[in-house]
């Protein structure tokens, strides 16, 4: 079982660049996606996520650079590739009056491989009772689930999901996350894009942060946070008048800010919390509130780009 120990890349992207007129959409983008992982390309809208993904899917040709997916050149061998991958596009539509089962049936007929069990797929995606509904009458979440069904109908080796939960309510979003985890559990590779940091954190094994067409860093969400945002913050409330002085004595602390009874203590590394707790117990300080603020990918993005991903 060599595969388990050394990650085998199924997607290799090296130095791609894509321009639209004078606008550089993607520049010098390189990354690898390994077999069996969920890999996320994250960044704000317009950062180059979709362009990058569509180059990898073979429906766009990069101006420069090389891409290999499952050992195929996505542009020159696009039909061979399409046979083995499943694609969900951002903002796609189907014929307004096509029925759910007709779409699934059509898609199933397009692939060489024996298609996945369509009925089971619709059951799993909660679309069984919508089999005869027209596409135009589906809700946003139902459309999105249909597109996921179409992306999975050929039992693909790699699944591409572009902004798959955009515009969905939190409940539908969670249901779709469960589905994507299910895809990975069946041994498939998932390559997704998202501008939702929560989605990336909960779903992705590894993420690449892209901004203004360039990749800034690639790693697991946890390691990205550790690397770029080692700051830790403890917020607590106490009426102990001696507290402030004690807090300032904690080693390697960066700042203590007080407002009324509330203290905000900043420092670096995982030890900060231990140090604060130690200080509280040693000095027998009674606290009425104790919270940690742990940085997340959103903070990493802010740190790396100087702007919030939501802007």
């Amino acid at each position, binding site marked *: 079982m060599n595969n388990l120990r050394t990650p085998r890349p199924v997607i290799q992207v090296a130095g791609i660049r894509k321009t639209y007129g004078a606008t550089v959409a993607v520049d010098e983008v390189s990354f690898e996606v390994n077999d069996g992982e969920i890999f996320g390309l994250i960044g704000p809208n317009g950062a180059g996520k979709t362009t990058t993904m569509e180059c990898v*899917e073979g*429906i766009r040709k990069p101006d420069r650079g090389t891409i290999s997916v499952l050992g195929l050149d996505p542009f020159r061998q696009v*039909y061979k590739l*399409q*046979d083995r991958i499943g*694609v969900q*596009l951002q*903002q*796609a*539509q*189907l*014929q*307004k*009056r*096509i029925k759910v089962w*007709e779409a699934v*049936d*059509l*898609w199933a*007929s*397009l*692939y*060489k491989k024996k298609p996945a069990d369509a009925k089971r797929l619709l059951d799993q995606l909660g679309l069984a009772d919508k089999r005869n509904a*027209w596409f135009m009458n589906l809700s946003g979440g139902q459309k999105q689930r249909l597109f996921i069904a179409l992306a999975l109908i050929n039992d693909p080796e790699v699944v591409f999901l572009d902004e798959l939960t955009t515009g969905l309510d939190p409940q539908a979003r969670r249901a779709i996350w469960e589905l994507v985890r299910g895809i990975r559990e069946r041994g498939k590779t998932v390559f997704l894009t998202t501008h939702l940091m929560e989605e990336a954190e909960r779903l992705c094994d590894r993420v690449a942060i892209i901004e203004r067409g360039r990749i800034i860093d690639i790693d697991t969400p946890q390691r990205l946070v550790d690397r770029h945002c080692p700051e830790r913050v403890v917020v607590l409330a106490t009426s102990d008048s001696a507290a402030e002085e004690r807090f300032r004595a904690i080693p390697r602390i960066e700042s203590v800010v007080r407002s009324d009874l509330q203290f905000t203590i900043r420092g670096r590394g995982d030890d900060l919390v231990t140090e604060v707790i130690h200080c509280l117990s040693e000095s027998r300080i009674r606290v009425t509130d104790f919270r940690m603020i742990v940085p997340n990918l959103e903070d990493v993005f802010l740190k790396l780009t100087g702007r919030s991903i939501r802007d």
Partner: protein
Amino acid sequence: MLRGLWKLTWIEVKVFMREPLGAFGTIGFPVLVFLVIGRVAGRNLPAPSLAASSFFRVGLPVLAALLIAISSVISLITIVSIYREGGILKRLRATPLRPQTILTAHVIVKLALTAATLALMVLAGKRYYPIGIQVPWFGFTIALLISTLSILSIGFLIASIVPTARFAQPIGAAILYPMIAVSGLFSPINSMPPVVQAIARLLPMTYAVSLLEGIWRGDAWSKHIGDIAALALVFFACIALSAKVFRWE
């Protein structure tokens, strides 16, 4: 290579029929108009003059056939641009479907609808237009098929380059309908000013009219090889051009 063609074609037919005006607008309405005109004309034109009768005998059926063909071409232009704008073309493209399969499916749907409309008209009109007795229906159908394919290829070229779905229909109509005016259907090409004659000879509609009128009258195919060659030339030129300029999104 054309995997999925029949399934896609069948789905496109069903989707089209589900549109509010789909079946009636394309098939029912022309037949209805035809019947109304037939009733009125049948009663009020007992002894037409020679020129009028020639137009009623040959020109009118050809005009009707061409109008059906053009309306299906315009509907093709509209559908392709709506599919492009809505991202449907792009979605279909991200599958092993070949572009030519998608386009062929639409052409088959349009040809089938044109044929169905015409067949219904012929059946419905038999009572009012007894002239149909000696008409070579099979030959005329083939001639119309050839003409429609040629006009469809122009439609594809238009569909490849129209910027948005909103413009597709007017642009298609503005290009296709005027072609009929100078096609020789209403007055002979030779009687037109030289400039108009030159333009007419560049337009495929002129050759379509010549072919359709000839076959309707009972000409031998050999007399119209030039027309067929011209229509084929237009077809291949437009298909080659649209393959180059076609936009998926």
